[in-house]
């Protein structure tokens, strides 16, 4: 068996708001094997971005805090390491790309300088070496004419090219884990296809493990081997992409798959109304209750769901669902 390189254990992250302290991540555990690709899917506010920020040690200060749990990177607990060590890991061993390629780059430096800066900080390269490597990296992320582009400023690039530059910066130090937080949400669909292709090629060439965070089930299906579905700060289902998509056991996962108007291979005159997930997501003040947080929107709800938080039921070796009725829903 592969030894996991990243292991999140019972992670609870709290956010202090005006109305009190809310667990935006509530006892979340998962692990990531070397070279593996895992997808985290959920609606806004479900905690998927918080998971990424917690791993990166970038929780919003002073309101966001890790209340309990461990994040093991190899043999190191990243919750306990010093800030200096965290800075070493960040950008070098674990790096991240963000949703907004427009605001993630500094407008006053050329893109070459911004890639080189990472290399000089983490790899002790001199200026010349770093610029040469930056050009190579731009070539690797398929930016046309990299020797000229390396001297361009961010505003001279299109959105898709900026996201390629972000990927080049993230991969500059050959990290072992890459976290991609909605990397293509701000991009057009044809450009998204290019970025996905680039990411999966880079992953198979470099062996970097990828955590892909998105709201798009289709993106997960194409990009990931395993997936985690999150709802209201909790992991509701985890399994291989095939298992979860073909045989979802949590009612929320089912709803999430069915409510999207997927492109049909063959279009007919028939158009059924879309499946709706009724109601709205719980507010932060309702997070952390000892009950199933999806109960108010669930059509399979029973008294048991309101009385206690459902444990993770094992459906198969790799497939778990946090639902009291996971056995029955198949």
């Amino acid at each position, binding site marked *: 068996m592969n030894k996991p390189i990243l292991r999140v254990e019972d992670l609870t992250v709290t956010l202090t708001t*005006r109305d009190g302290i809310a667990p935006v991540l509530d006892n979340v555990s998962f692990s990531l094997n070397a070279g593996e690709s895992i997808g985290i899917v959920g609606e806004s506010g479900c905690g998927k971005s918080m998971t990424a920020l917690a791993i990166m040690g970038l929780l919003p200060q002073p*309101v966001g805090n890790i209340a309990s749990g461990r994040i093991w990177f190899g043999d190191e607990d990243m919750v306990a390491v010093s800030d200096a060590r965290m800075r070493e890991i960040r950008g070098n061993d674990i790096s991240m790309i963000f949703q907004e390629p427009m605001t993630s780059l500094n407008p006053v430096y050329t893109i070459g300088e911004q890639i080189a800066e990472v290399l000089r900080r983490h790899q002790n390269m001199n200026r010349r070496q770093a610029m040469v490597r930056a050009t190579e990296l731009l070539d690797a992320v398929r930016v046309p004419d990299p020797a000229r582009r390396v001297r361009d400023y961010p505003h001279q690039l299109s959105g898709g090219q900026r996201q390629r530059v972000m990927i080049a910066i993230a991969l500059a130090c050959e990290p072992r884990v890459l976290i991609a937080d909605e990397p293509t949400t701000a991009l057009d669909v044809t450009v998204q296809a290019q970025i996905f292709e680039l990411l999966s090629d880079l992953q198979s060439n470099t062996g970097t493990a990828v955590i892909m965070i998105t709201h798009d089930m289709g993106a997960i299906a194409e990009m990931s081997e395993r997936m985690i579905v999150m709802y209201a700060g909790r992991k509701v289902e985890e399994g291989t992409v095939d298992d979860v998509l073909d045989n979802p056991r949590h009612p929320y996962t089912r709803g999430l798959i069915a409510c999207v108007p997927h492109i049909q291979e063959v279009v007919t005159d028939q158009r059924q109304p879309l499946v*709706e997930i*009724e*109601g*709205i997501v719980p*507010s932060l003040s309702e997070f952390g209750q000892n009950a199933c947080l999806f109960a*108010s929107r669930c059509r399979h709800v029973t008294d048991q769901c309101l009385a206690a938080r459902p444990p993770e039921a094992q459906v198969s070796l790799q497939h778990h669902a946090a639902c009291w009725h996971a056995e029955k829903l198949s």
Partner: protein
Amino acid sequence: MAGNKAVANTAEPVVGKARHPVMEAVAMFFGNYAAVVALIVLLVIITGAVVGPIYYPTDPFEMVWAPFSPPGQEGFLLGTDYLGRDILAAILAGGRVSLAIGLAAAFMSVFIGITVGALAGFYRGWVEEILMRFTEFFQVLPTLLFSMVIVALFGASLPMITFAIGIVSWTAVARITRSEFLRIRELEYVTASRSGGATNFKLIFSVILPNALPPIIVQAALMVGSAILFEAGLSFLGLSDPNTMSWGQIIGSNRPYILDASYTVTIPGLAIFITVLAISLVGDGLNDALNPKLRRR
């Protein structure tokens, strides 16, 4: 049936209290202790200026005792000045004038500033070009010099002093108003009103302006403070109405005796200092309360 189903679909417990955004700002303001203390101080000062002269009817221009009688001695709480006039009476009466000038000048600059800024920001194009060049013209004038010229030319009456202060300080309001209008006119709810058939007049005054007000209110509050300072500056230079008492006037007239009887200058100076500080703190509190980004925190 379909309608009932849709209602059920949105069923969720939140029907909170309908709290007007203004009420939220008020609640936020009262959570800021410095601002609340400053507001109380300011209310005390305003009350003193309004009712003080009624309960302490000594004429501030009348010689009531020997000159340079120090505070607390010989029956005068704040002493007398170089002509033997009661300083307490002067502070109370002068407070009325200083605050009135501050308010009136701020009101005037807000009025001019909003008009110019709103028209420039809403209509863009040549309207904006002309109005902003006009604003820049007033901005580059040396303010103190310009107001001195106005007062010197047209006489040092109270309305003229107010006018002189107002005319040199509206440009900041105009710029803020314009930039808020430029931002808000692009928001979709303005487009929505437009496509709903709203007239330009309605768009400017009842759609955009209420949403542009928060920074303007803050600026107006701070402007009251700076207008009081400005008036004191003019009085200090002798450019004030000699027949009305103001805090600046007390300082200006006692200026030659600053070394022999420093209290004659320090006491009105302190009054100005405390008032302007209180206004600034209230302005800061308003800024925090009205700034939605801070409120979300």
